[in-house]
């Protein structure tokens, strides 16, 4: 699956929470272990949000610097993964604001999609086998992130709600509408899944 399992490090297999405690005490080795464990997921999450590897790398570095700085304040209310992904999302949104782009709301979606191929071209380019993945790439940002968090990052409703800062019921309906939008894109590309 998507996640790297906890790696052996320090004195045996430390939990993420233990690592964060050690980081709060200034333990650099713990920082390296936590980074090794989570950097790929954070990097990919950021790549999907900002659509730039270079930008994602810069932001990822900021995310883990925040972890270093804020570890002492981590209270364990959410899992470390959820906490780190929340920081990553905040950093990505802040970078959009810095560039005077709009936030990842409905108004920004059109702009983000402008450089995208339309579904017919997607199908011509990729064939049916990859059409679903291509349509996943063309989803609006708000739909992309909820789909990634649920399917790839395997976040629960509650965890997704924490990361996105929205109520749990909104998470469920947003996911539903994201899936529906995906089906509509596929339909435009000539693939009718019989729903919606």
């Amino acid at each position, binding site marked *: *699956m*998507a996640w790297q399992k906890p790696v052996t490090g320090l004195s045996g297999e430390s939990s993420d929470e233990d690592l964060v405690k050690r980081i*709060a*005490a*200034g333990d*650099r080795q713990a*920082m*390296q272990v936590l*980074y*090794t464990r989570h*950097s*790929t997921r954070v*990097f*990919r999450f950021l*790549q*999907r949000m900002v659509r730039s*590897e270079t930008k994602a*790398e*810069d932001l*990822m*570095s*900021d995310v*883990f*610097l925040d972890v*270093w*700085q804020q570890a*002492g304040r981590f209270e364990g209310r959410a899992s470390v993964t959820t906490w780190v992904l929340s920081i990553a999302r905040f950093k990505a949104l802040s970078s959009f604001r810095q560039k005077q782009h709009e936030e990842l709301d409905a108004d920004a979606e059109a702009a983000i999609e402008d450089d995208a191929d339309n579904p017919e071209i997607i199908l011509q380019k990729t064939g049916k086998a990859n059409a*679903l*993945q291509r349509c*996943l*790439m063309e989803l609006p940002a708000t739909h992309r992130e909820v*789909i*990634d968090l*649920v*399917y*790839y990052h*395997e*976040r*629960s*409703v509650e965890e997704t709600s924490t990361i996105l800062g929205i109520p749990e019921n909104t998470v*469920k*309906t947003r*996911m*539903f509408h994201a*899936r*529906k939008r*995906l*089906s509509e894109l596929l339909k435009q590309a000539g693939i009718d*899944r*019989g*729903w*919606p």
Partner: protein
Amino acid sequence: MSGIKNGHPDDAEPSLPEALLPWYATGRLSPEEKTLVENALASDEELRRRLTLVEEEAADTIGLNESLRTPPAVAMDRLMAKIDLYDAQHPKRAVFGGKAMAWLSETLSAVSPHTLAWSATAAAFVICLEAGLLTRLIAERHEAPGFKTASLNTQTESPGAYALVSFVGTVPLREITTFLLDHHAVLIEGPKPGGFYRIKIADENLSGDALNTKLAAFRAEKAIVSMILPEAPKP
């Protein structure tokens, strides 16, 4: 869109079992919610078909994300360089204070007043002893002023060319880190009085034109470097 398809409303808000299908597929439901979905699936063929769509979507989302690059190996070095710089600028991380106070409070509340009185006398003695030790420690440090970073070990300092640099005040950490990496420079120590940092600019001793060329390259970064001064090579 509206209407009914296979017994399900096309465009209405989803029923709870349908809304929960993605989390059912990823195994992230509570036992109660899982039972709710399974009961609905048992009696609803269209819902079972939609579950297969969800599973397809999940598989492709994973495939798409797994096709993305992993972070470059150098990214961790950059991060640790940033952390070095951050710690150099924020040398004190009061991390034990809260826990120590909690432990002290808990311990003291458990002892009797009589024991506490004797403990206080002993503590006063320890404080006097510590004061003496601290005075000696401060005196020793006074002989060798300056803040030590984690990476600094003056006794085993490697040969090379060193310089004192001050940065333009508004430059963010990220740019300073990139600047150091670009010039193959390493932060050694700082901040020192006047806002200077000691950096290593080359792995070998430099002098004459080689040193001037190197310093000129640093000085050319006017947006980042406000001043750089070469450090005399150690004998």
